[in-house]
């Protein structure tokens, strides 16, 4: 399956009456890793949810490999080969670990098998019959990522995959993301952990108050370190 590219222009999104995104424009070329950075409340998560079709009130254009999906429902978008790892992880309490892994619908046969996923995350295999939400935070994050590896998707939207995790587990998650990248998949990452993201990212977008205010290509990261710190308010 050809890798997917993503292009967003002038995206507005609303929760009820409140206007959250004010014309977001960004590009994620096929096979690249793009990271959105920014403070809390800048609209990063809303951007990912809008791409996935999970924000019902949205305008502008979102094209995935040339196809405009601004009016498509989430299941249609997912079936194009887009996979989503939400910030809150979204592990189902009424499903056990295996069921959680098997839930996302396969889009093609290029994904990993259940065995391969368990190989990558042995902890999950040990707890395969446990209720999803009985897992530790780290295990839940592994499950959330493992879950999207099986479907054969080629555009991954990852929302803060390392948030609140112990360094050992961050390493494991990093391995999985590097694996995705090595396979040539397209990744749009939202990440507060700049040091973690910088290693794999091809370009950074900086968001503030529902807008993209800057784009920093990989080559400029060191040169503009001071400015980045300012953006993130570190």
């Amino acid at each position, binding site marked *: 399956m050809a890798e997917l590219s993503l292009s967003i222009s002038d995206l507005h999104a609303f929760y009820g*009456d409140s206007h959250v995104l004010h014309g977001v424009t960004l590009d994620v070329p096929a096979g690249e890793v793009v990271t959105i950075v920014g403070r809390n409340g800048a609209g990063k998560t809303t951007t990912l949810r809008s791409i996935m079709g999970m924000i*019902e*009130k*949205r305008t502008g254009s979102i094209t995935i490999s040339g196809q405009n999906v601004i*009016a498509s429902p989430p299941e249609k978008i997912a079936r194009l080969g887009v996979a989503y790892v939400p910030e809150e992880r979204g592990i189902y309490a009424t499903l056990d670990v295996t069921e959680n892994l098997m839930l996302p619908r396969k889009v093609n046969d290029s994904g990993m098998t259940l065995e391969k996923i368990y190989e990558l995350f042995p902890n999950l295999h040990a707890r395969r019959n446990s209720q999803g939400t009985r897992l530790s935070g780290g295990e839940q994050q592994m499950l959330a990522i493992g879950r999207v590896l099986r479907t054969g998707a080629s555009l991954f939207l990852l929302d803060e995959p390392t948030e609140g995790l112990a360094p050992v587990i961050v390493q494991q998650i990093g391995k999985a993301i590097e694996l995705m990248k090595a396979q040539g998949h397209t990744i749009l990452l939202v990440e507060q952990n700049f040091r973690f993201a910088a290693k794999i990212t091809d370009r950074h977008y900086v968001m503030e108050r529902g807008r993209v205010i800057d784009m920093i290509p990989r080559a400029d990261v060191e040169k503009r370190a001071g400015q980045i710190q300012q953006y993130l308010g570190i």
Partner: protein
Amino acid sequence: MTTSTSTTDTKISAPPVRGTDYAWYAAGLLVLLIVPFFIYPLFAAKVLCYCLFACAFNLLLGTSGLLSFGHAAFFGSAAYICGHALKEWGLPFELAAILGTLTAASLGLVVGVVSIRRQGLYFAMVTLALAQMIYFMAFQMPFTHAEDGLTAVPRGKILGLFDLNNLYVLYYTAAAVFVIGYALIVRITNSTFGQVLKAIRENQPRMISLGYSVNNYKLVVFILSAALSGLAGATKTMVVQLASTVDVHWATSGDVTLMALLGGVGTLFGPVVGGVIVESLQFYLADSGLPIQAVIGAIFVVCILLFRHGIIGEYQRLRGKH
């Protein structure tokens, strides 16, 4: 390019109350005074009872957002008690109506205590199921006369002077009860108490954190609503001289819900409009050979699909936009 309808009109909401519209009240009183010269007074009196019932029901739904699907229990139990007091104890209507109202209020206390902590749909289901218990009790209790009901209830005299069998006396008595009940409801809705209830409905967690005992507020309005429904039921028994299992059946709870919905939930005057329409429909359809129940059901469906805010509610929305 939005994929959904606006989410702003998803809550049952009360437009701001305009308590100062005295011109409207004067006009309303005038209409009440002249009605029996144009419409059969007995029918008009009966309609007023149901209008009061709908207003009492709406007092709960409009201020607290709680949909009770069991209000027939209060209406009907007061109807029975009032009927029994008139017929078996020979009490005058004033006392019988007070007895009925107190019965409904105490029943409201019991039902309220168990159901008030439940929210939304749970509340509706629990009130419906508890009301059904009352319905079955109405078949078991000796004084309700099961399927036959309390028939030929004597009306007696009002204030010991005027014979209620005179249709005009009957009508103006019912109208007086309605005005008292309606005035109380307006007063409660506009009081600080009513405002606190609205604030609870808008944001319950905030009101809890501000130290309001939310459930007590809801319980009080529930009891008030039950009591006023009882007043309506008691008066109805006197007017039509009958209290039967129909009064406690869940279809009566459904009818009163439709009245409030059709007229406009959360508006003060809406339930009156809804009450007049539903009662008139039932009256005129009764001889038409059309299936009343099916027609009422269809109105229900259309109303929910097309104008959820009800007649008065939609009118206020239109006026509010200009």
